[in-house]
């Protein structure tokens, strides 16, 4: 076999990177959301450097209005609101990704297993999923957090557990659709083991709606973290968290409104960004859907 016919020498498709960039160029919403999230991510990484003050250093200058030294003023313990806002970003991102990660870790294998194996496994899993989905989510998250012990990590694990039934159901449906495709049958005739079939064929083809949902869930996780921290079950003081900042600021709403608006807007924009990214991804990854979103 001559070397000239070797696959490496023949035509190549445009690389993944180039396809990604052209997608961004065509979808403004995706580009803006992604840019915002990248900024947020950088803020998180460089929080210590970028924040003008320490987020936990208290001072006597309490509830001061915004000025040159404190761009958003200070809170009731004299801490710089702006710095706390910046330091809240890594907490937020960590929380969202942790919750979604736990949800995926539990939901993905369970859903694939139920979808691929069918039979009583599927039936039982379906019932369990139904049962868990009849819990009002935040209440369940609170209950699990109470059991595990309050704190950011535990509460986000709880949220992840709450996410997992919905995710399992989603991937299960996709698995069932893909499992009946002919190329899966072909793989069986080649003697491929079920595990390998799942890994090589089912997962890559079933994962797209899952990825979209996961992105959207980042927004939900974010809001959940905000609620839980607001209630004192999430991030514990003195660590700053946007939800927690909202809780503190409520009492001083009339005196120092910027304390209340800044974290709230931060939550809103970040949730919007995750949602927008998810919706854009859905348009790309699922072209069969009718254009009605």
């Amino acid at each position, binding site marked *: 076999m001559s070397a000239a016919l070797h696959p490496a020498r023949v035509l190549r498709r445009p690389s993944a990177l180039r396809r990604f960039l052209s997608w961004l160029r065509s979808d403004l919403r995706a580009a803006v959301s992604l840019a915002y999230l990248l900024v947020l991510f950088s803020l998180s990484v460089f929080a210590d450097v970028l924040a003008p003050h320490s987020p936990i250093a208290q001072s006597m200058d309490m509830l001061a209005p915004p000025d040159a030294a404190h761009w958003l003023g200070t809170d009731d313990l004299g801490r710089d609101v702006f710095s706390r806002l910046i330091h809240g970003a890594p907490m937020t991102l960590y929380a969202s990704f942790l919750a979604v990660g736990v949800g995926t870790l539990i939901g993905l294998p369970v859903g694939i297993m139920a979808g691929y194996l069918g039979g009583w496994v599927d039936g039982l899993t379906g*019932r369990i999923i139904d049962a868990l989905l009849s*819990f009002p989510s935040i*209440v369940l998250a609170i*209950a699990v957090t109470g059991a595990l*012990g309050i704190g950011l990590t535990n509460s986000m694990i709880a949220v992840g557990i709450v996410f997992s039934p919905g995710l399992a159901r989603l991937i299960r449906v996709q698995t069932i659709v893909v499992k009946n495709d002919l190329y899966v049958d072909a793989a069986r005739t080649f003697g491929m083991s079920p595990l390998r079939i799942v890994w090589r064929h089912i997962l890559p083809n079933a994962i797209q709606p899952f990825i979209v949902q996961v992105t959207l869930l980042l927004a939900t996780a974010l809001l959940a973290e905000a609620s839980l921290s607001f209630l004192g079950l999430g991030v514990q003081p003195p660590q700053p968290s946007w939800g927690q900042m909202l809780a503190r600021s409520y009492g001083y709403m009339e005196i120092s409104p910027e304390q*209340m608006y800044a974290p709230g807007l931060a939550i809103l924009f970040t949730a919007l960004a995750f949602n927008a990214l998810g919706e854009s991804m859905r348009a790309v990854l699922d072209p069969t859907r009718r254009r009605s979103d």
Partner: protein
Amino acid sequence: MNRRQMLLIGSRLLQVVPVVILATVAIFGLLQLVPGDPAAVIAGEYATAERIADIRRMLGLDRPVWEQYVVWLGHAVQGDLSTSLITGQPVLDEVLRRLPNTLLITVLALVLAVVIGVPLGILAATRVDRPTDRIVTTIASLGVAVPNFWLGMILVGFFALGLGWFPTTGAASLTQDPLRALSHAALPALALATGGIAEITRQLRSALIEVLSSQYVRTLHAKGLSNARILWQHGLKNVSLTLLTVVGLVFNRALGATVAIEAVFAIPGTGSLVVASATNKDFPVVQGVVFVLVLIVIGLNLMIDLLYSLLDPRVNRR
């Protein structure tokens, strides 16, 4: 009601039973999640060994797990949800005392969501891709992304503290003083409704668009039926089932989301109860609240499911 419909109802009821049982297993299992010795955790840091042993006996933690479950379930079915570790009061009483406040704002929020969401959805669907639609869609996107307790705080700032139209905190009994109860519930319900409004608007819009652009409707247009008539007779009838499902979904979410709203408005409801008891490790109360809420959700979903299958001719075929 004919025989087949009764069979349908019966089979649905039967299907719910395993779900309820699994839910109770999950609720009971919450206690098992506690790392370490639950009795010690409950007793607290400064407890004596005696106190821990007391608690263990009181909660029946010295028995094998499955036995604990059966005992717990047996009590629960009879209405005995154990007593609070903090107050010593029966859990069920406390929950039932607070439940009306929570249900009031939840139901009110649901009503608001439908009353506002449905017209918005129709508006957007009938003016697809035009400015009106874009505005509505944007509002819906915002509604999904906004933290509702934050919105609650802002509402308090404007309408309660600023304009004085509504009280800022607390709740009143609906049966005894309905007007006051409603004025207390108005702002919380509004804050709670935002997510629901957004969800209903979106789902209704998308379902309606699909129906309105179908072949069937296009032939109706060609026959000369007016837009309004098409919308009412065919459009809405077809999406009413979708609407029903979404309403169920919104209720589930709202019931959970009251937690933060109750904190903002200082409403003595089940949400604040579960938060307090979770913080204080008062597990019987936590389990009790979750149990009652789950039953409510399952009950509502069952009703919706039944309504759905009685109304939808296709589902009936089974």
